[in-house]
């Protein structure tokens, strides 16, 4: 597979990645997910201060051809959104793990972290999905 999965990140089976720093989780969609969607032309992000349960839709990602969801990997409060995506949604295509990040969450349930996937586990799920 020609997709990237950085080792230092955690993943979900719905193609989000999560980076942890100081009890804050930064979330975006994976390289595979951006590739599946194609040219991304609009990202509808939540507002700062909104609180979501794990598994609910936090953002909608519109490409030329399709609509994708960003699903909350952890329950918690949105403390920051990537304002750059408003004018540069293509950052999600060009830099899915970097400048294309979407939301930062102050998560409320520590134990939910245990459900997240390692890069190796995510890779195995992808291989099953593709073949």
């Amino acid at each position, binding site marked *: 597979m020609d997709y990237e999965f950085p080792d230092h990140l955690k993943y979900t089976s719905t193609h989000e990645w999560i980076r942890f720093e100081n009890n804050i989780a930064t979330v975006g969609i994976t390289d595979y997910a951006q590739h599946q969607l*194609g*040219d991304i032309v609009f990202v*509808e992000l939540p507002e700062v201060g909104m609180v979501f349960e794990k598994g609910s839709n936090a953002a*909608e990602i519109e490409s*030329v*051809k399709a*609509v994708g969801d960003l699903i909350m990997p952890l329950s918690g409060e949105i403390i920051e959104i990537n304002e750059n995506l408003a004018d540069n949604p293509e950052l999600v295509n060009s830099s899915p793990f970097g400048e294309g990040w979407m939301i930062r969450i102050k998560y409320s349930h520590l134990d939910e972290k245990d459900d997240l996937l390692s890069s190796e586990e995510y890779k195995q799920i992808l291989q099953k999905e593709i073949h």
Partner: protein
Amino acid sequence: MNNKSIEIKKTALYEIHLKHGARMVSFAGYYMPVQYDSIIKEHEAVRSNVGIFDISHMGEFLLEGKDVIKFLQFIMINDLNLLEPSKGQYSCMCYENGTVVDDLVYYEENPECFRMIVNAINIEKDYQWLNDHLGEFDVKITNLSTKRSRVAFQGPKSDDYLQPLVDVDLSQINRFYFAHCTINDNPVFLARTGYTGERGFEISFENKFAEKVWKDLTVTGANPAGLGARDSLRLEACYSLYGHEISDAITPVEAGLSWLVKPKEGIDYIGKEILIEQKTQGTENVLVGLNLIDKGIIREKYKIFKDGDEIGFVTSGGYSPTLKKTIGLGIVKKQYKEIGTELEIKIRNKLLRGKIVSTPFYRNV
């Protein structure tokens, strides 16, 4: 519906698409390239250079016999008197209630032989519809759809790229005219038609020439382009797509195609009565162009509101790579059709502000 037993067909260019790295999807019973690299790049290639599309999934019929013109006058809403040999015509065939069986182009090879190109999703239905209405007409219909391949070669440089390969003077072929010629010795049917809003050609040939013709056309500098770009291009140009702007529930007049409905004095054609009435008196619902004032993307089937009342729906919508903003077409109640009218479009659970704008969004033909 269980589709598992239906075999998805491959066009003669299937292997070539895979070599180009296409993402293939099932559409109208065929594996078709939706995009090679990027829909936006392919779209831009057609607007600034040339794009080449495999449209072999579309249908191609040959209608032969001494009553062909009489038959087409009976079954089509456009007027065959406007046609002449070596020319094509866009038209619809309609049901008695004026809604659309299909929209299509037919080309007059000679007064007793017409070539017809129909929508991929309607091939079987059209073939049946035509045959069911043959009656006493002396016409024979041959379905060439799977025997021949078709490509569209579209963009501002299409004449420059194509001229060195063909044995005809392209400047002598006007829009909607065609010629039989060769591309590096391979015989083709070549028409100056298209679905992109850009100048260009649609080309048909026997399957055995498909790979050769595709290669000859791509080495010119044309970019392979998929169904994704085909849809975004036609939406900018505001060309109807069957199942969206026109369908078995929408008439050509409602879809802004009144100009296709011809009086044809003394000729009774299917749907004539209601279509002429709609053309003269107008319809309750009409097609309009849409922009969003708020940020977002509108898609087909989204509902349109005015002051809380539902007034219509989006027939096609998306991002315009040329205009770099959201565009759409929709059908609304006629009292709201004025350009500049502000309205709301429901996207998931939100009402976003939009307005009615003039169409087409873009055309350069």
